[in-house]
């Protein structure tokens, strides 16, 4: 029955492709916004003082310290208690963004702290303002150091985006579950679902490798 081609072509593939589109619509904005939040929070944690440091640390602790499913439940089922109603899609994107932002911030913070004091001193000595040395000297170096870790986090995100179906945002895994329950052909359907994720992760890994090559600087990054 594994070779029942028409079953795949007519039912599984179209349904999963529809789910795939939703998955991609979850992954792209979550990865982008998560990275931006990670950069901001990571910078606040590395260089911030007082309440700025406190806020960023509390944020990272909460979102790294609680299960993503719980975060999604709170966003989707809990927020309406406060009068905030999010669509399943929005709740999922928000949850993924906040969660991956917290993890990105950890890589960014580590990368920022690994930058030698002399780099900042040299920039200051040339008359760079704090902001300008941050954007021109510190962040470009930190991004190279953080790239492998942040890349990994994006690959995780591709996989944990499958949790969106739990709050009724029917993406790839959700579509798989629907069609599998309808036809009772679980192993076949989920083998294909697994293959879809594998392809996405492989493409992402390849893109990240290209990115690392593009920003390669001798004596840098691989350290």
């Amino acid at each position: 029955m594994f070779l029942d081609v028409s079953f795949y072509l007519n039912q599984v593939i179209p349904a999963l492709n529809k789910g795939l589109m939703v998955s991609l619509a979850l992954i792209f904005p979550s990865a982008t916004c998560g990275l931006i939040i990670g950069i901001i929070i990571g910078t606040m944690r590395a260089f911030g003082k007082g309440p700025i440091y406190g806020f960023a640390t509390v944020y990272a602790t909460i979102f790294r310290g609680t299960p993503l499913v719980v975060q999604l439940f709170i966003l989707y089922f809990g927020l309406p208690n406060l009068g905030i109603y999010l669509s399943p899609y929005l709740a999922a994107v928000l949850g993924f963004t906040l969660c991956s932002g917290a993890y990105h911030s950890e890589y960014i913070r580590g990368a920022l702290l690994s930058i030698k004091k002399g780099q900042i001193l040299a920039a200051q000595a040339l008359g760079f303002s704090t902001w300008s040395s941050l954007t021109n000297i510190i962040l470009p170096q930190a991004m190279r150091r953080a790239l492998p870790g942040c890349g990994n986090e994006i690959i995780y995100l591709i996989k944990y985006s499958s949790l969106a179906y739990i709050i009724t945002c029917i993406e790839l895994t959700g579509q798989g579950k629907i069609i599998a329950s309808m036809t009772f052909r679980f192993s076949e359907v989920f083998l294909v679902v697994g293959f879809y994720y594998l392809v996405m992760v492989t493409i992402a890994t390849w893109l990240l490798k290209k990115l690392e090559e593009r920003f390669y600087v001798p004596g840098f990054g691989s350290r």
Partner: protein
Amino acid sequence: MSIENTEVLLKVEGISKSFGGKRILKDVSLSLNKGDLKVLIGPSGGGKSTLLQCINLLITPDKGKIFLNNRDVSFNKKKDVLALRQQIGMIFQDFNLFDHLTALDNVSIALRKVKKMSKKDAYIRAQMELERVGLGDKLHHYPAELSGGQKQRVSIARALAMDPLLLLLDEPTSALDPELISEVLTVIRELSNSGMTMLMATHQMGFVKSLAQEILFMENGRIIEHDTPENLLNKSKVRTRTQDFCSKLL
């Protein structure tokens, strides 16, 4: 404000600095005329680096005054501090080249981002400065691909590109292998001959004797002796602290 001598480029008056209750600089004063090369020597921990970093306000002095071109420099107005740093070039012992940038970008980035020059003009200027320190063939090399001596020459080019009134050099050859020291000293010698004003911490006594106008001997946060190399090292009848220290150098 003191305007007794228009030739005075830098005047430091009564600078003091403490770190965590420990007094590192105690009432240090000095002045540099245009074109002067003065050197700071003295034992480790004496405060040479701290003094140099106070002069371009990388460290804010607790007390004292700094005059550049007879202008009283304010320590806490951000704009003044940034402007002062642009006018004073700084060379560090361990180069501090920007690790993610090529030699050309190391030299041009401040021109573009601080002086707001166009990319094209900045590159032209940067290339010129790199050629001047003998690195015209290393424009696109990254710091990791350069020797220590080459790195230090890039850092000198980077400082010169900003058209500084004055260069501060903090033991520019101390991190170099002996055979690389001379290529850096040659560049500094040429700079001095072309009239650049410099204050340099160094223990290269041959260089000091042949080129420095004055030795400032620094110990425990104070300049305890200052005179020409000749007077401090050769002529004096009483044995100077500087002689004492230098006899132990090699």
